């Protein structure tokens, strides 16, 4: 022990003693000096070797604690092992002394006269129990394994094993039958393993915490710290509130506390891109602190509840535009009450609201049919043909999004709707209505709409190549600027070429992700779209470096190109010296681009 310097945690007492110059070795030395008569303790009881083993092998709960304490390296334990100069018998003696009042008391009883002086001297000497001894105050210590012992109950002789149990009062050991009949299970496993589990759980958290804090998160922490003193940030209004809101949302750090940064009675617009952490009360507060809002957009606002909607109908009297992503807790009666008690809305866009049913739709139309300009009912579980009937009475709609329903609407319902509201529509999204066919294009969109600029027909598996190409070649609408025909794997080259032929001059965003069999000849036509800023060519198998080079050269306004799943694209135009400001993502060979 003395040859290494490794030391475990120590108790306050040990620490204090060490500070005052009392160490195990000095204590042991003093003890040996003080003992004028080394013999007696040895003669008093059991052989010390037995005692020693019994202590280390103790299986009772106390003993276990003692052992773990020893493993932990309490310095006072070294009393038992340290001190090489004195002879072994002396060490044993000091152990015996330390080991317990029990032995000492026995000594007192048997050889009082002899021990008197010794005892008195001991009053002054450092004789604190070593840690392993504290746990063992009982007068009886368990005998060594393998030795014979008399049962404390039935008084039969039996062999001590590691399962042998000490009686409750600590006066003796029990034989196996007595131990069993006393109700304790001698083979019961220790509780040590159970205790280990929490430490394992803690480890997982440890790994999560290891991430290096970003400067953005540090700044947000500072904002939260000073949030009660908003003036400290200078003129927030002059800053780009929108950008700050985005930066905070990106880290999911918008909380009820720092949301106050964006509040103000004079604000008319409020946009939170991640309101996950805004609780129900804080959403009510939001409305109370921004009474003049006309436009409110909350993304990921899962905690909006009936209470919030009830509060908003009075606290947000001026809101005409409401955009919510994920208000799934709001029940139908709360929606209806909101529509009935609030002034007509011009813009109502919700996504993912499984409780928004036909009754809500009726209430919305009843209150806002004439004013509604933008209507978004995305991923609404109850969407059905009846919904479309009611939407049909909103005659001034410019923007309609009824995409991603649970069950598709039918051709007839969509065509009827478009014949009602089609003439004014500029944006239309009918994605993922899996029952829609070419008939919607031919008799609905082509006949009724004339002002469309955005058309999203994503994932409509029944559309055919002939139908789509016929639609674009015969359509009187002016060129589109935003087109999404992604996830329609049956559309081929003629669809794309007729689409480009129709909208080439104004096209800004084109998404043909998943049109797997489009050929090179059609893809090359994309290079003739002068206004194109963003394109998704994902999973178009024919796309290669040459087509992409042509597109990059032809469409000078491109800022984003997605080529996920285009296996032939390797990015060779970079070495060919083509310079582009576009961000090209998804090249298989370039994980960082």
């Amino acid at each position: 022990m003395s040859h290494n310097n490794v030391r475990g945690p120590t108790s306050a007492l040990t620490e204090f003693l060490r500070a005052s110059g009392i160490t195990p070795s000095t204590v042991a030395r003093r003890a040996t000096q003080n003992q004028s008569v080394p013999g007696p303790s040895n003669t008093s009881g059991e052989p010390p070797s037995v005692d020693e083993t019994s202590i280390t092998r103790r299986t009772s709960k106390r003993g276990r604690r003692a052992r773990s304490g020893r493993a932990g390296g309490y310095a006072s334990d070294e009393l038992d092992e340290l001190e090489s100069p004195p002879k072994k018998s002396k060490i044993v003696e000091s152990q015996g002394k330390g080991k317990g009042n029990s032995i000492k008391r026995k000594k007192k009883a048997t050889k009082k006269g002899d021990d008197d002086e010794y005892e008195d001297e001991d009053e002054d000497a450092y004789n604190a129990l070593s840690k392993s001894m504290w746990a063992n105050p009982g007068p009886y210590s368990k005998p060594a394994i393998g030795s014979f012992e008399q049962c404390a109950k039935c008084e039969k002789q039996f062999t001590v094993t590691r399962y042998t149990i000490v009686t409750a009062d600590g006066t003796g050991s029990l034989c196996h039958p007595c131990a069993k009949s006393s109700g304790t299970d001698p083979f019961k496993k220790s509780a040590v393993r159970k205790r280990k589990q929490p430490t394992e759980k803690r480890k997982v958290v440890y790994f999560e915490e290891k991430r290096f804090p970003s400067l953005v998160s540090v700044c947000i922490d500072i904002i939260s710290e000073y949030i009660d003193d908003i003036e400290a940030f200078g003129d927030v209004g002059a800053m780009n509130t929108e950008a700050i809101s985005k930066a905070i949302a990106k880290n999911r750090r918008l909380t009820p506390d720092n949301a106050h940064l964006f509040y103000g009675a004079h604000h008319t617009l409020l946009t939170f891109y991640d309101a996950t952490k805004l609780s129900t009360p804080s959403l009510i507060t939001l409305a109370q602190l921004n009474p003049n809002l006309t436009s409110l957009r909350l993304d990921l606002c899962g905690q909006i509840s009936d209470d919030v909607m009830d509060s908003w109908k009075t606290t947000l009297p001026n809101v005409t535009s409401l955009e919510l992503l994920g208000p799934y807790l709001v029940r139908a009666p709360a929606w209806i009450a909101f529509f009935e008690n609030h002034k007509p809305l011009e813009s109502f866009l919700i996504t993912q609201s499984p409780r928004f049913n036909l009754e809500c739709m009726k209430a919305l139309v009843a209150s806002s049919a004439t004013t509604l300009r933008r209507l978004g009912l995305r991923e609404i579980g109850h969407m059905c043909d009846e919904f479309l009937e009611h939407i049909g009475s909103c005659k001034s709609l410019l923007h309609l999004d009824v995409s991603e329903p649970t069950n598709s609407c039918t051709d007839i319902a969509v065509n009827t709707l478009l014949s009602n509201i089609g003439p004014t529509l500029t944006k239309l999204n009918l994605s993922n209505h899996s029952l829609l066919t070419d008939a919607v294009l031919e008799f609905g969109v082509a006949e009724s709409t004339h002002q469309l600029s955005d058309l999203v027909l994503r994932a409509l598996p029944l559309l055919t190549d002939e139908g789509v190409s016929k639609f674009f070649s015969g359509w009187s609408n002016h060129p589109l600027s935003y087109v999404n025909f992604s996830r329609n794997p049956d559309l081929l080259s003629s669809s794309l070429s007729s689409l480009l032929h129709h909208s080439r001059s104004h096209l800004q965003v084109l998404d043909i992700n998943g049109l797997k069999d489009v050929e090179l000849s059609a893809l090359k036509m994309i290079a003739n779209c002068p206004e194109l800023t963003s394109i998704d060519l994902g999973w178009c198998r024919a796309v290669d470096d040459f087509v992409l080079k042509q597109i990059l050269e032809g469409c000078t306004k491109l800022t984003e190109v997605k080529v996920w799943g285009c296996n032939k694209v390797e990015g060779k135009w970079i070495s060919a010296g083509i310079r582009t400001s576009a961000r090209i993502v998804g090249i298989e060979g370039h994980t960082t681009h």
Partner: protein
Amino acid sequence: MDIDTQTEVEPHTTSQGDIENGEDWVRLVSNDGFSFLVRRKVANMSGTIGNSLDPSSSYAESETKTYHATNDRGIIVQKLIEYMSFKAHYSKAKGDVPINELMERIPPEIVLEVLLAADYHEL
């Protein structure tokens, strides 16, 4: 204002090995004309700055070894560099990161500007 005035190594005389180790010097210029010389490995802590100074890219920044922070004034760029040095030093070290020391160095008056700049520079 040169934050690192003890530089004696001329940027043009650095060896290829230095560039690979990030030991060569690059210049960061704020929009009000302050210029800061920092080790490349420190500049690389920012994704945006690191990419535009990447020797294998053909940006003008990488050829001149100068990055222009066109949106940020000197004090903001200085705080960015303080964080980048902090990160370069502590991200490899074991043990606790004394993040409080950094927080104390950013006064609340500029924290919103720092926030926006940090967001842009992927810090």
